[in-house]
């Protein structure tokens, strides 16, 4: 009984932390389950994908209602992220868990460095309650949804690519973004993350999509991307329903709490604390990769 409650509490903490800090749930859930509960890394990734889908679906629903997400662009790109996820899901069962741990350690270091750099920049204006959908920050998008409502994404005449733009922007360099999306899908499937860390910059910097739209669209894409690989994990016995249940419920509750408390918590101190947690977790993952943990 204690383990189940601890898993629920751990899920709540991971969900709340992820939501407040604008980080993906997978980044926290995988270390929680491997280092905290001793689960094999691959099984933790499978459970993490389930949690990522929960938070992505809940927040994407809000983004779609508000017309913040670019549905057509998201669907074109998720064709490629889903393909990457299927490949990644198959590869995850072929490679050594120690290599997965090494990749995860690298990811944690990258996020820690990114957060340290963000700490040096001036603080952004906090989002207000009615602007921040529940779970908006959990599915892997840094600094998600900090702004006002985006005007409705309208359809345009012309070909498929011409119709992928939105108010005030057109989509550029789609082939490059498609290739990057495959990479995001592979990373998501291998590491149990949403992949927003890749998708948001890809859409914003490569395609020229406004950051707010890119964040919302990334959230939409995360669901089917994680779903494609989660199905592979599910069929191959990589998801334990006993672990997935309490963790997913905890993450869902935690993300709801986090989205409401986010702007009331001192972000700077929390981020410094979180960077320390990330560095510690990266070291533990590296030790596991080296076979000394």
């Amino acid at each position: 009984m204690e383990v189940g409650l601890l898993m629920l509490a751990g899920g709540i903490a991971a969900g709340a932390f992820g939501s407040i800090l604008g980080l993906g749930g997978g980044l926290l859930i995988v270390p929680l389950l491997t280092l905290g509960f001793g689960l094999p890394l691959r099984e933790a990734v499978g459970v993490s994908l389930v949690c990522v889908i929960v938070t992505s679906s809940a927040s994407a629903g809000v983004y779609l209602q508000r017309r913040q997400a670019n549905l057509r662009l998201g669907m074109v790109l998720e064709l490629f992220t889903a393909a990457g996820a299927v490949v990644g899901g198959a590869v995850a069962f072929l490679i050594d868990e120690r290599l997965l741990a090494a990749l995860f350690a690298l990811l944690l270091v990258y996020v820690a460095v990114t957060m340290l750099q963000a700490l040096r920049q001036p603080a952004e204006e906090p989002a207000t309650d009615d602007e921040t959908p529940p779970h908006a920050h959990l599915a892997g998008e840094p600094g998600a949804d900090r702004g006002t409502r985006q005007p409705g994404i309208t359809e345009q005449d012309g070909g498929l690519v011409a119709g992928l733009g939105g108010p005030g922007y057109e989509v550029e360099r789609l082939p490059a973004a498609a290739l990057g999306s495959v990479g995001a899908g592979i990373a998501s499937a291998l590491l149990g993350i949403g992949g927003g860390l890749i998708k948001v910059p890809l859409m914003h910097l490569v395609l020229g999509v406004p950051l707010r739209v890119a964040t919302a669209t990334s959230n939409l894409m995360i669901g089917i991307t994680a779903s494609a690989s989660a199905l592979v994990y599910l069929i191959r016995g990589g998801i334990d329903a006993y672990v997935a249940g309490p963790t997913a419920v905890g993450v869902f509750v935690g993300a709801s709490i986090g989205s409401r408390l986010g702007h009331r918590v001192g972000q700077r101190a929390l981020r410094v604390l979180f960077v320390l947690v990330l560095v510690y977790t990266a070291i533990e993952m590296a030790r596991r990769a080296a076979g000394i943990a």
Partner: protein
Amino acid sequence: MTPGPHATALEPALARVLQAGTYLSIGLVAVGSELLISAGGSPLAGGPALSLSRLPADLLALRPEGFLWLGVLGIVLTPALRVVTALLGFWRRGERAMAVVATLILAVVAAGVVSGLLTG
């Protein structure tokens, strides 16, 4: 490609699918978790593998694995249901290219299922 003048936006319908699927699925998972924890079971004991044929009996017997697996399946399939809804919507609106994109996404997901079955 361009929808007719009376076409309604797809986004609200897709939002409803995502939200209903998520809340229903997480509700099932919550019931399963409560049954598991209140019975003194440990998540680390290793849950039974998914068996679709056993699912109805597990649900009727109020066994935690029935609710947990049905909820997990609901969570994992909700995004695919959103794509199916989008496919139907695009088709009705005459957006054939987007309907093809939605079909291809579903084909990729199905390919993942087939590859899992073949190699699992």
